[in-house]
């Protein structure tokens, strides 16, 4: 079979253009008659807009127009919506406040867009935006979820009393309370999950062009899901009907979730292009990115986990306050509910789980899905609690996990997930061996002799991705189906184009997607190209997020290939006068098994399109499409072990070893999968040690540049030890599980468990900066001194 097929470490075909600077990103595209947009943004976290005076700005050199929110809403542009409805405990729908692309009466966070300026050059647009005079009446602001819920907190949206968006629950409260009452040991913890800024390498950008001759719009934008963008822009924001709007997401430099959503800027640029009859380009500055890209995480939780006298978990009770920022972003509501609380069972057999979640408006940037989306928060909570419980009960952390592992599948959790396959012991064993857990004590002593504190921490994660049966998510409130589509076009010369609704913004689809086609027809991948990211080329697609491109996107391609294969075999059987059951594809040919009869793959293509000699009744052509709707989530799982050394004098943590054992099911390209794991762990270590979005009490963003927001750098990270121990996913034709988020989901608790093990103080929140770790060490020292 093809040496470029499933399991081959094929080098990424897209990398030549990326590393030679030949990629084509939105900002690289220049439309004829292009003008530039700049936004006037609120400097206040919460204020009434008293007046907007743009007279001076309109007179400035090169200024074409200045438009505000009253004009935008006056033209019938709709409010930005959250596409997943969540129902509160009491049966009431969630309280979604209005979000206009340009604020009308009130601004609700620093960076909220108030007006758009269109000018001939970028510099002229920026200068004029500064000249727009907005009079504000400032209002008290809140930045933290607990402050937002406090009595007397400033009211951010009229229709969300007390800033409460919803109060949602899952699981059986009474059964869980009873189980905890009867427990031999209960571990209680307060757990925070820090707020993160996504920091894609390419900032968001858009170029909108209105063509009055055809009454048609084209939008180039940095999107992970251009079809969803078109749907939402059309159906909800009323910018243009779908057939009059083309959305193209060309090369996109990283998304991590932040480019799923439709932001005010794209809407305003489309609308402004119609108003001005010009192409309107906007490219976010890094400062705007820090202020306005949807943030991730920001949970404040309490947890209680009960155990019987043998260390078996009897119940888990969790309360979480989720900070949503000033507006509900596209999928924000699903993150702390169906993507979070449904994973609180971890890898464990837990009979009773109850979780309730309060979602809160604050005067901060909107919060939505960010690499892992809810699952990192669940994993961090469960794995911090497990490690802590092991310490409290004097058990080995690996043994406590082993006592509670799920071992028979399918396994139904009390929080509505059905785990389909896994070998949690296998991953734990593999990780412990690769990490030389047995040799840790020796290494700890060696560090101690050098005056350093060494610690080790586990994280046995499970996540749910490849979201998910459309009917199931629909019943839980999703506004869209979560299937994927594909079309496989065999050209008359035998080359193949695969059109996919998935979108690659770094994942390497041009390579991996081609590999499964190469495998099926035994063709070189040079003969296969992957087409994506353009609503005029691909009929429809749901895009790429939630580690779904493999399990869902490639499954759709596999289904389309089934149809192509069947027709190709019929053609070959007809031409070769054989039975189609005897046709096999080998070495670029269709062969008749057990004979020397064969025809080239390109001849099949040619036969299909010349249609001179096709079986009776067969339509010409060789092109098939398919939609694939998953039967379940996929459940990647594994164990991560982190080993750290802490300098007790400075509090600085160095990651000495990081070992990963993952179960991703079938792996198409191990090199690309390992790259995903490396990147995911880097982001997880970033969250655990370095990254933190900080607002002051007035809602001013303090971490608004790389001078204060700490991105992980190469010298912060170890050389990873990455291993695979796989079980096949029974839910999709290729047996795949998602691999894009696992690293970011599984790693933070391993890091914090290791540091708290090293310093002997469990009271440590993320990010574990040197200053915080040092303070925790002082706390331990003074507690010891007091004894």
């Amino acid at each position, binding site marked *: 079979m093809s040496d470029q097929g499933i399991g081959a470490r094929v080098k990424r075909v897209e990398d030549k253009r990326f590393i030679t600077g030949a990629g084509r990103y939105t900002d690289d595209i220049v439309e004829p008659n292009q003008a530039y947009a700049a936004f006037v943004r609120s400097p206040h976290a919460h204020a009434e807009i008293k007046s907007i005076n743009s007279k001076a700005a309109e007179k400035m050199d090169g200024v074409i127009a200045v438009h505000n929110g009253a004009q935008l809403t006056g033209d019938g542009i709709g409010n930005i919506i959250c596409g997943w409805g969540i129902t509160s405990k009491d049966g009431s729908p969630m309280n979604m406040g209005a979000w206009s692309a340009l604020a009308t009466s009130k601004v609700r966070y620093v960076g909220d867009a108030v007006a758009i300026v269109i000018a001939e050059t970028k*510099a002229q647009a*920026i*200068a004029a935006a*500064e000249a727009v005079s907005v009079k504000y009446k400032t209002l008290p602001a809140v930045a933290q979820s607990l402050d937002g819920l406090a009595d007397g907190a400033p009211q951010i949206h009229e229709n969300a009393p007390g800033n409460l968006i919803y109060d949602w629950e899952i699981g059986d409260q009474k059964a869980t309370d009873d189980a905890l009452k009867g427990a031999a040991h209960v571990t209680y913890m307060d757990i925070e999950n820090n707020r993160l800024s996504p920091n894609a390498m390419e900032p968001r950008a858009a170029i909108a062009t209105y063509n009055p001759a055809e009454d048609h719009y084209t939008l180039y934008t940095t999107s992970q899901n251009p079809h969803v963008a078109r749907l939402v822009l059309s159906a909800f924001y009323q910018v243009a009907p779908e057939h009059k709007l083309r959305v193209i997401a060309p090369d996109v430099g990283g998304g991590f979730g932040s480019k799923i959503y439709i932001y005010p800027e794209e809407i305003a640029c489309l609308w402004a292009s119609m108003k001005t009859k010009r192409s309107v380009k906007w490219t976010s500055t890094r*400062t705007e990115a820090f202020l306005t890209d949807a943030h991730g995480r920001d949970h404040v939780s309490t947890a209680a986990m009960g155990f019987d006298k043998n260390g078996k978990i009897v119940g888990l009770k969790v309360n979480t306050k989720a900070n949503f920022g000033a507006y509900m972003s596209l999928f924000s509501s699903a993150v702390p509910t169906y993507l979070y609380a449904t994973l609180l069972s971890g890898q464990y057999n837990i009979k009773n789980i109850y979780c309730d979640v309060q979602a809160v408006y604050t005067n901060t940037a909107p919060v939505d899905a960010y690499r892992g989306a809810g699952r990192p928060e669940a994993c961090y909570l469960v794995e911090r609690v497990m490690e802590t419980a092991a310490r409290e009960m004097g058990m080995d952390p690996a043994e406590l996990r082993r006592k509670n592992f799920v071992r028979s599948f399918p396994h139904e959790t009390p929080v509505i997930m059905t785990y389909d396959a896994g070998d949690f012991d296998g991953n734990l064993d593999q990780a412990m061996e690769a990490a030389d857990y047995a040799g840790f004590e020796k290494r700890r002593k060696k560090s101690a002799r050098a005056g350093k504190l060494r610690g080790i921490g586990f994280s046995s994660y499970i996540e749910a991705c490849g979201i998910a049966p459309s009917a199931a998510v629909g019943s839980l409130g999703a506004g869209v189906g979560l299937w994927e589509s594909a079309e496989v076009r065999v050209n008359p010369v035998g080359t193949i184009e695969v059109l996919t609704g998935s979108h690659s913004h770094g994942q390497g689809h041009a390579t991996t997607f081609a590999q499964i086609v190469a495998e099926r027809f035994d063709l070189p991948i040079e003969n296969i190209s992957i087409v994506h990211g353009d609503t005029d080329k691909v009929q429809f697609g749901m895009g790429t997020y939630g580690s779904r491109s493999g399990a869902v996107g490639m499954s759709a391609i596999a289904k389309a290939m089934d149809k192509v294969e069947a027709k190709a075999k019929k053609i070959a059987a007809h031409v070769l006068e054989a039975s189609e059951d005897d046709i096999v594809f080998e070495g670029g040919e269709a062969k008749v098994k057990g004979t020397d009869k064969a025809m080239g793959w390109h001849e099949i293509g040619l036969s299909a399109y010349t249609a001179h000699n096709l079986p009776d009744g067969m339509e010409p052509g060789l092109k098939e499409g398919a939609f694939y709707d998953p039967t379940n989530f996929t459940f990647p799982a594994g164990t991560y072990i982190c080993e750290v050394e802490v300098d007790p*004098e*400075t*509090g*600085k943590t160095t990651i000495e070893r990081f070992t990963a054992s993952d179960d991703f099911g079938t792996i198409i390209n191990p090199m690309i999968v390992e790259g995903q794991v490396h990147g995911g762990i880097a982001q997880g270590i970033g969250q655990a040690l*370095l990254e*933190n979005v*900080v607002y002051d009490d007035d809602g001013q963003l*303090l*971490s608004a540049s*790389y*001078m*204060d*927001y*700490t*991105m992980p750098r190469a010298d912060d990270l170890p050389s990873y030890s990455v291993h695979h121990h796989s079980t096949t996913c029974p839910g999709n034709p290729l047996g795949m599980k998602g691999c894009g988020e696992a690293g970011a989901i599984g790693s933070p608790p391993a890091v914090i468990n290791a540091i708290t093990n090293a310093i002997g103080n469990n009271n440590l929140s993320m990010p574990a*900066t*040197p*200053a915080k770790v*040092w*303070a925790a060490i002082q706390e331990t020292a003074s507690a010891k001194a007091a004894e």
Partner: protein
Amino acid sequence: MYDVNFHKAKDAKDAAKLVKSGDDPMYLSGGMTLIPTMKARLAAPSDLVDVSAASDMVGITVKGSTITIGAATTHAEVASNAKLIKAVPGLACLAAGIGDPAVRHRGTIGGSIANNDPAADYPAAMLGLAATIVTNKRKISADKFFVGLFETALNEGELIKAVIVEKPKKSSYAKFPNPASRYAMVGVFVAKTAKGTRVAVTGAGGDGVFRMKKLEKALDKKWGPEALAGTQIGSEGLMSDMHGSAEYRANLIGVMAKRAIEAS
């Protein structure tokens, strides 16, 4: 960035003449702080007078025990000059640890000390070595030069031409970088000079770089890390921000001082 007139000075005299043009002129050396500030539209000088190629402001000369460093000398040159490495190892090592290679090949010693960022490295070396700052008008001792946060004794239009340091018996610098910016969270420069020990701290002071006289006295008695044992370092007057409290910075002063002494 706002529009700006750009002038390139041939030498220090030319620079002083050019800086009289425009209503809000500024000298530009490496531009490692000024250019990003201008790009963020937080600074808007009318004119920039670039001194990075001023012929009498670049290069390092060592004459006897006196080392003169032109103000427009880059960090990379300071870090790699063989004579300077031998004469003042602490200064060369400090320069080698500023920013990244790109910064070290553009940024200059004069630009750094004129800016007097409270987290910059060079002010600690200047103060620790009791350097003399030579301007186009006068000579200023480092003790009088660094006035406060981003404030120096320089008058309007006054230009740093060079810095002069006397070769110390020992010199060493240790810094703990801010995790985000990698500027000094705390940097401690220690020097044993003819006039006694000097310890200068950057990154921590609420008013910028400062000397730790308590520590200097202890080290005068006996040079060695044990001198620190009896010296309490208080947190009063130290900076506190999202990256670290004043108490943490006070601790780091002790740790970095110890490490600098150990490395000397």
